[in-house]
């Protein structure tokens, strides 16, 4: 018998504090597995955000730096400019990246900063208890949009991948989801390609991962997977928006 799947060495032994069924766990695994498979764990520095994954520095088995809300790309820039031979990644939620952090993420793309961003988009602020995010869907309820988001009040949800893909320095931009094993496989492939883009020195790479928040969406983890498929994927289409050498 051969072991074909076990816990990645890219993760520490610490059990995560994430809610049952939270897809952060899946995404952490994919990043950890990719770094392990690329053989770069010992040369990697990750930057943790503010959000549910604020404690990501306890879960990834590599050097980690805790950033303030939204600023992880700037922190990562500082690290990468000092240590250009190392692999540097940020791991950010949608409140972090698409709200307070929009300047920083646009500018790492703009500068073509050779870092990789894992953007976990669950259309809500998780850690702080379910407030509306720039990515919250129209009609979706949140604690600061108790009657559901409306266009008149808050505009349409922000499509980050499409926006960043217009920037030359963003060499690799792809949106994936982790609601089914098939999508998880595609997500891992994209994450690997993103890190390879960094290793090849091609520029900024980002993978937007459509994710669930069962607790703040108010549903079971299994129902949340279905809600993601029925509601997030139609508005945030999966696919590659930019790849090194390709013009779309």
């Amino acid at each position, binding site marked *: 018998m*051969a072991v*074909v*799947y076990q816990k990645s060495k890219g993760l520490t032994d610490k059990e995560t504090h*994430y809610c049952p069924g939270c897809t952060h766990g899946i995404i952490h695994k994919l990043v950890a597995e990719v770094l392990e498979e690329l053989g770069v764990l010992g040369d990697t520095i990750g930057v943790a955000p503010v959000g549910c994954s604020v404690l990501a520095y306890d879960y990834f088995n590599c050097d980690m730096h805790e950033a303030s809300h939204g600023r992880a790309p700037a922190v990562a820039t500082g690290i990468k400019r000092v240590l250009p031979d190392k692999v540097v990644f940020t791991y950010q939620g949608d409140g972090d990246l698409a709200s307070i952090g929009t300047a920083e993420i646009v500018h790492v793309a703009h500068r073509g900063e050779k870092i990789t961003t894992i953007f976990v988009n669950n259309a809500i602020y998780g850690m702080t208890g379910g407030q509306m995010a720039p990515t919250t869907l129209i009609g979706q309820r949140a604690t600061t949009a108790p009657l559901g988001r409306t266009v008149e009040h808050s505009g349409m949800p922000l499509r980050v991948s499409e926006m960043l893909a217009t920037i030359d320095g963003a060499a690799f931009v792809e949106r994936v989801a982790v609601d089914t094993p098939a999508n998880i496989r595609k997500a891992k492939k994209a994450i690997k390609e993103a890190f390879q883009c960094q290793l090849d020195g091609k520029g900024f790479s980002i993978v937007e991962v459509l994710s669930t928040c069962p607790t703040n969406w108010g549903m079971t*983890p299994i129902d949340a*997977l279905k809600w993601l498929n029925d509601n997030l994927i139609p508005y945030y289409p999966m696919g590659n928006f930019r790849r090194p050498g390709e013009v779309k």
Partner: protein
Amino acid sequence: MAKGKVTFNEDICKGCGLCTTACPVKIVTMDTSKINIKGFHPATVFEMDKCIGCANCAMMCPDSVITVERF
């Protein structure tokens, strides 16, 4: 004849049930006869002879509960 075998690290299972959606032969289930140290019904497989060793369940699990072996 089973093609694969899965082992569950029961005490770290959070009972989320995502693994049960991933299994193509629908043998992963929550063991409602017991609760683990966290107070959840852990995931398990009763019909291991049907396991095809695809590792979908392990891939789906956010907490790396499942180890998969293939013959």
